């Protein structure tokens, strides 16, 4: 049985392809942009969730900016105090110095941590190659002796890059995804933040950071020479059940902000809520443009095919039949556009992840939203052309030259 809308689409192959591409680009923008923004933030939140700690302590007054801040925050003594004041409740409190470092052409929040505590941040992952930085803490002890025990400004000035390098201070562990993207491997030298570093280990991705370095190095280089303060403290509790109580106790004792690590995802989303709004607004505009495209195409189709539509009416086609033809053509085109858009989105997501360290997450609910929006747009944009088709004067259309 002849199916006119499909026949019409196949008859005008180039026009149909361009229309489907127009819709597909709109769908692709919606899926890729939302997948990129939410995927990248989601991936960061997943990595924070992987940390083997329940509580996060950060300086009072940082408020909602916490997810993006780095550098000097609170005294390392809080870590000792938290452990001392909560015996039997706190397994360990680990100070971490966070600092942005540009590796492989992209900024990463590097984590400065003592090698003995690194396993907490790695989320249980083992090194897949090389070794940990400053494994026997020799540099950390030397620096502590220089700066904390002797406390001399002259000593601080006399420490050179060569000293740092020779004592194993400028060593990095990176995750496997960064290693792959930046083509780095164990033993490579990299120049970052005006210092020459050596890659000493690679860990599978999924831990807190993509770059790890000795906490003392991070504090010394990026903490203005002070090695007494870190950015945050992660607290691992003995009993997961007592998280709320432990959180209150530590907050009352330290007068610092204490949140559950699992809340970090919400903090991140709140921080970047404006970006979501912006991305969603761009997506809406992209979809509106895509459907204006369909509306113009259908309207042009109706104008071009007045004779055919008049002919159908001369056979006795009802207004509903004519509307169905226009609507079916719009929906078929949208179906093809959706298929193209979803396919291209997955391809674009894969390409983005290959070229950059961003993560594109195309969730089924976003696909459902995109399809629903596309079909709603197809119906709305078919309304006026369908109405015009219904109003075509048969005699005029069938007798005109």
């Amino acid at each position, binding site marked *: *049985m*002849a199916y*006119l809308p499909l*026949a*019409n689409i*196949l*008859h*005008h192959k180039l026009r149909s392809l361009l229309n489907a591409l127009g819709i597909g680009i709109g769908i692709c923008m919606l899926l890729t942009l939302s997948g990129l923004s939410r995927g990248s933030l989601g991936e960061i939140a997943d990595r924070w969730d992987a940390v083997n700690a329940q509580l996060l302590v950060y300086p009072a007054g940082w408020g909602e900016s916490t997810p993006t801040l780095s550098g000097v925050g609170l005294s390392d003594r809080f870590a000792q105090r938290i452990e001392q004041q909560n015996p039997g409740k706190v397994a360990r409190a680990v100070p971490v110095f966070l600092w942005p470092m540009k590796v492989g052409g992209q900024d990463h929040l590097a984590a400065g941590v003592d090698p003995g505590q690194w396993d907490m941040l790695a989320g249980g992952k083992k090194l897949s190659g090389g070794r940990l930085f400053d494994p026997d803490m020799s540099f950390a002890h030397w620096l502590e002796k220089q700066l904390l025990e002797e406390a001399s400004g002259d000593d601080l000035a006399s420490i050179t890059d060569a000293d740092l390098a020779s004592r194993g201070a400028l060593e990095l562990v990176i995750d496997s995804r960064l290693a792959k993207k930046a083509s780095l491997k164990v033993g490579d030298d990299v120049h970052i933040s005006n210092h020459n570093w050596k890659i000493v280990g690679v860990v599978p991705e999924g831990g807190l950071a993509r770059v790890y370095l000795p906490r003392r190095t991070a504090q010394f280089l990026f903490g203005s020479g002070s090695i007494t303060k870190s950015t945050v403290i992660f607290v691992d509790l003995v009993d997961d059940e007592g998280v709320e109580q432990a959180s209150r106790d530590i907050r009352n004792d330290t007068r610092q902000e204490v949140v559950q690590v699992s809340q970090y995802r919400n903090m991140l989303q709140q921080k970047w809520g404006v970006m979501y709004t912006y991305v969603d607004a761009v997506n809406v505009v992209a979809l509106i443009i895509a459907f204006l495209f369909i509306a113009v195409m259908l309207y042009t189709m109706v104008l071009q095919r007045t*004779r*055919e539509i008049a*002919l*159908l*009416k*001369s*056979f*006795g*086609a*009802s*207004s509903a*039949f004519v509307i169905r033809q226009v609507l079916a053509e719009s929906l078929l085109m949208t179906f093809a556009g959706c298929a193209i858009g979803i396919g291209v989105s997955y391809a674009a997501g894969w390409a983005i992840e290959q070229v950059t360290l961003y993560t594109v997450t195309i969730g089924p609910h976003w696909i459902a939203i995109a399809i629903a929006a596309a079909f709603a747009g197809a119906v709305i944009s078919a309304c006026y052309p369908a109405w015009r088709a219904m109003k075509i*004067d*048969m*005699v005029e259309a*069938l*007798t005109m030259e």
Partner: protein
Amino acid sequence: MLQAYDLHKSYGRGSSAVQVLTGLDLRVEEGEFVAIMGPSGCGKSTLLHLLGLMTAPDKGEIHLENSRVDHCPRTRTAVRRRRIGIILQRFNLLPELSAMDNVEISLQVRGLRKTGLVDELFEKLGVAHLKGRKPSRMSIGEQQRIAVVRAMAHQPRLLLADEPTGSLDSKNTQNLLEMFARLNREQRQTIIMITHSADAAAIAGRTVRMKDGRLLD
């Protein structure tokens, strides 16, 4: 079967309006084969459009099978139109469909399915080999014959034809006219055919002549 009283039809508005039909009366009995002849511009095609319910008269009445049909609601008119077969001067085949699909879409609109009659019509009009071919790859005569198949495929009670042999060679003209005559004779098909050809008109049971928007007595 069909009665038209005092039909008036004009095109255009105001001073540019052209009066095409000026009080035309026509009566066609069931099973009758009527040929309408007349000079160009006398209103033959306009009469056919009115009888085919493709447009409404400005004044006058049309009765089809004892029902007045000239100013019915759109939906009811569409349903009545399905029972009429019409062959227009321009064949108006859908370019995106094959010959067979062009016939099938007309059946689909009417809520019908293809029957053996369709293949028979293709055979009789010598276009069986064109079933899968699109109009762009047919001659004018071939397109005309497909349009005839399409108009007759649903066995209409009333067949209206506007110069159906205009683009056919003498052999196909003869075949088509013989088919009309046979349908009229054997199945009492009511046919109203517009033609400029006296030979074609001769096959009809009655010939009426038009001039200046009216039938000549």
